[in-house]
């Protein structure tokens, strides 16, 4: 968290990128696979390269989607009963063009969503996003929940490992047949949950002492500001999306 991200996209106001994210997903729902695969995927790859996160973005993008995309194409090809042009045939495997187009259409929305979400968090600190939301009058409770969860997850993973080792030392088997492994589940998770819940009251008091429930406006340690380019881009995205959707409806109706 300490390492500040550089690159031109990271300097944009988080909400500008959030507007872009929502516009892209809505457009992907309205348009067919060509928008997703021919416009958004190249665009996000270009933006990632522009921002200097190309390889890290590509790795996450492929990691998140590869299995999913392979299975969708497998399903669509198996379910395809059309008599469109055959592209490939080997014994009982027949790949037709319609099956591929069905696969592209089915995956397009999720591919776009994954691409913009991953790009968003590749170029935005969650902390900055929360500050910008709070500046727009979103409750500080939301920020607390999100930021404290991000701290809590690695913390609890670490503690669960300690508990599992302690239970192993006391003779609980974590390997072997399924019955043994199932019996190890509760002793691994139970103490973790109960100890976390028992600590809650101290945490509550700590927060209250710092004025968590106080009904005054909260201040920030870090200040981020939206610049005029942010306003221009946000409005640009919204108008462009509305124009494209209008055009789509027009084509669809007439």
């Amino acid at each position, binding site marked *: 968290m300490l390492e500040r991200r550089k690159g031109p996209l990271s300097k944009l106001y988080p909400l500008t990128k959030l507007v872009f994210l929502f516009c892209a997903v809505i457009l992907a729902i309205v348009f067919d696979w060509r928008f997703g695969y021919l416009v958004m995927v190249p665009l996000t790859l270009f933006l990632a390269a522009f921002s200097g996160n190309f390889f890290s973005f590509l790795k*996450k993008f492929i990691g*998140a*989607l590869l*299995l*999913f995309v392979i*299975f*969708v194409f*497998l*399903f*669509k090809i*198996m*379910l395809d009963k059309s008599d469109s042009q055959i592209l490939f045939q080997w014994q009982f495997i027949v790949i037709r063009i319609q099956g591929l187009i069905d*696969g592209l259409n*089915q*995956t397009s929305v*999720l591919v776009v*969503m*994954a691409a913009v*979400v*991953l790009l968003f*968090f590749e170029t935005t600190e*969650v902390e900055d996003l929360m500050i910008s939301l709070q500046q727009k009058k979103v409750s500080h*409770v939301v920020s*607390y*929940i*999100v930021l*404290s*969860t*991000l*701290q*809590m*997850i690695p913390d*609890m*993973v670490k503690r*669960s490992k300690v508990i*599992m080792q302690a239970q192993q030392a006391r003779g609980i088997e*974590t390997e072997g047949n*399924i019955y043994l*492994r*199932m019996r*190890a*589940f*509760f002793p*691994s*998770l*139970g103490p*973790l*949950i*109960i100890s*976390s*819940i*028992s600590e*809650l*009251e101290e*945490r*509550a008091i700590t*927060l*209250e002492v710092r004025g*968590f*429930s106080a009904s005054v406006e909260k201040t920030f340690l870090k200040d981020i500001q939206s610049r005029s380019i942010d306003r221009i881009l946000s409005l640009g995205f919204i108008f462009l999306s509305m124009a494209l959707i209008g055009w789509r409806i027009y084509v669809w109706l007439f």
Partner: protein
Amino acid sequence: MSKAAKYSTMAILLIPIGIAINYVGGQIALILKLPVFIDVIGTILVGALAGPLFGAITGLVTNLILGITAPTWIPYAIVNVAIGIVAGLCAKKGWFKTVKGAFITSVLIWLITQLTANPVTVYLFGGVTGSGSSFITSFLIATGQSLWQSVITTALITETVDKFISVFIVFFIIKAIPARTLLKFPLAKHYLD
């Protein structure tokens, strides 16, 4: 600090813990190589201790935060929200107090999971769930079943045991929480005599 404010601070603090439990529960099931997901224990627990609203928030934020690195989780947020709401409502009926009640809760949570998860899987994901269970689905499709039949059958195989185990784990955990801690949560009166 008023009583209401204190309750809600405790409930708010419970949410990050619930989310972390969702994640860690899934991880432990993975480490122990169990054939179940067990990734909604936290949502059910928060719903049971703090009510439907807090359960729903736990479910929503869990999937959004996991979505930061694995965006395919985001659409399934609706399932996790529904589970939180059902768990909260069942807790308000006092059903987490008895084995019979926990059983009814399991059935309802299982039902709402089937009703919400399968449409997302079919319409948005084309039948793929992104886990090992997709192999079952593709086997069923290969045998000539329709997509809906295959997805529902897969979900019945993988989800049923999962949801029953999850609810009963929460049931036993609530029994194990000392009364003086339990007392601090909004729904405490449904557990203490």
